[in-house]
């Protein structure tokens, strides 16, 4: 699916239509007098639409001759980096219960919690003009202008710290053939309780070489500057961007789902929503954990071992080591087998388990059911 995205035909400029088109939004820079910068403000709060818009701009806008700043925010979502493992980075069951979706972005870096109090900035430039420290200067200078008393500084890791200690911004980026984008978060007034409860592992016992997040204590700007309004922040950032790069761009609202403006953005969004991208792109990993089994009817307990290998989000191997006195090996073996090739996902596993349970009754049924439940819980 990724490969299909790259074959879209290039934009044709000069086609005049009644509705605004991309050629209106991104005119030839040689025809515009005043610098070649653009500030866009996404009107959507859907994480997939916004990530798709980033991909679209990266793929279609000629960034050799212009630069773009995109300002956006999302309804609650968790976003993992390109090569991360969502099972280790976030609490998937809690997210499911709370209706918080998982997205995987195309840039590297760590896991972040997004909500309407978290502002995202994406700086698009040519590869040559890629300069993260300069972009972060836009943010720190803007903050210092509106609230001179704030102690905000960018670090070597491209975080922004408040009072030398609290992380208010993290950075990630992507380099393509000719273009680059650097995006960062900015915690204005995010729900910190939700953030810390959701950014925890789903299940213990995972070993992988996926890129890990570096957890940091965070703070909101409004914790230290309560009067700072969202609109004030956006305006300051747009102004500072223009000032830093010598542009005169007024922020323009855009709808990332507008196919006339961004032809092909819909299929980019679909690709980002897909299970194959979100979960399937997880680097290969192993899960080795201990399961505590119970037979409520007899008040008995037993320990078992679970060993799973997952590749492309699918179960490549699954072994459940249950003592033979507890459950006949044909059943624990069958459970391991029925999960092979399935998505490493409790819904799929539950369906496979149900099929197996239909053939059993009495004690084996009861114990197999318990094993299944514990196994599902162990899968996150």
């Amino acid at each position, binding site marked *: 699916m990724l490969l299909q995205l790259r074959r879209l035909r290039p934009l044709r400029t000069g086609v005049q239509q009644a509705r605004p088109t991309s050629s209106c939004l991104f005119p030839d820079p040689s025809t515009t007098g005043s610098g070649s910068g653009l500030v866009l403000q996404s009107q959507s709060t859907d994480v997939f639409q916004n990530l798709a818009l980033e991909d679209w701009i990266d793929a279609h806008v000629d960034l050799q001759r212009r630069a773009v700043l995109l300002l956006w925010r999302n309804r609650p979502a968790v976003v993992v*980096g390109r090569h991360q493992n969502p099972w280790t980075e976030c609490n998937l069951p809690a997210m499911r219960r709370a209706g918080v979706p998982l997205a995987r972005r195309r840039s*590297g870096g760590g896991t972040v919690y997004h909500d309407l109090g978290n502002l995202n900035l994406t700086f698009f430039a040519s590869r040559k003009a890629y300069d993260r420290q300069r972009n972060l200067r836009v943010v720190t200078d803007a903050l210092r202008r509106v609230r001179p008393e704030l102690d905000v500084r960018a670090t070597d890791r491209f975080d922004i710290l408040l009072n030398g200690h609290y992380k208010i911004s993290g950075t990630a*980026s992507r*380099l393509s*053939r000719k273009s680059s984008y650097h995006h960062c978060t900015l915690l204005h007034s995010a729900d910190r309780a939700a953030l810390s409860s959701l950014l925890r592992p789903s299940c213990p016992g995972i070993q992988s070489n996926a890129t890990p997040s570096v957890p940091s204590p965070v703070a909101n700007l409004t914790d230290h500057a309560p009067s700072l309004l969202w609109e004030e922040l956006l305006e300051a950032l747009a102004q500072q961007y223009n000032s830093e790069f010598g542009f005169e761009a007024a922020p323009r609202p855009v709808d990332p789902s507008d196919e006339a403006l961004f032809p092909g953005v819909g299929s980019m969004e679909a690709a980002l929503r897909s299970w194959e991208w979100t979960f399937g792109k997880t680097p290969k990993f192993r899960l080795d954990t201990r399961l505590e089994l119970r037979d409520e009817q007899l008040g008995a307990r037993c320990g078992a071992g679970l060993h799973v290998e997952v590749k492309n989000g699918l179960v490549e191997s699954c072994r459940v080591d249950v003592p033979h006195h507890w459950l006949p090996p044909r059943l624990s073996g069958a459970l391991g087998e029925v999960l092979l090739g399935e998505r490493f996902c409790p819904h799929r596993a539950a369906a496979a388990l149900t099929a197996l349970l239909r053939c059993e009754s009495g004690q084996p049924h009861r114990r197999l059911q318990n094993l299944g439940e514990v196994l599902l819980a162990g899968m996150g």
Partner: protein
Amino acid sequence: MAMRAALRCLSVNFSPRLPKLSSAALLSATRLANRSCSQRTLTVTSGQCAALKFTEKHEWVLVESGISTVGISNYAQEALGDVVYCGLPEIGVKLEQMDEFGALESVKAASELYSPLTGEVTAVNKELADNPGLVNKSCYADGWLIKMTVEKPEELEKLMDQAAYDKFVKSLEE
């Protein structure tokens, strides 16, 4: 005999030390490989000879017996910084020239990888899973990324040879 011994020495040195070789040394190293290669393979068509070719995206391609090995150049690995993860495709994936086939994540960014040729992936460097730093330490040898078939040999001919690539890199640095 002497030539073969020299070639063996060369291939031993080719692995870990190559990234530190200056461009000039690398040029003479590959010229030596070319000469000995052509002496041994007089009856084979020119496309079979092992010589590094380069893309503008700083990838190198080495074709041997119809299979090309792909990696990134020293210029690229230096620009990337320490690689922390290699996102590579599955064996069997079919790629067109210029298709994105994966990404290298470094402290700098997630940098997309573009297929230098049209063909099918036949092997992926498994060592990079646990040791992504090989791309930095040994970009021309142990840090190879994928192997693929060469469906369109004419694409190979259009890539830069060592001399052209050196010139290209110099022009970027100016």
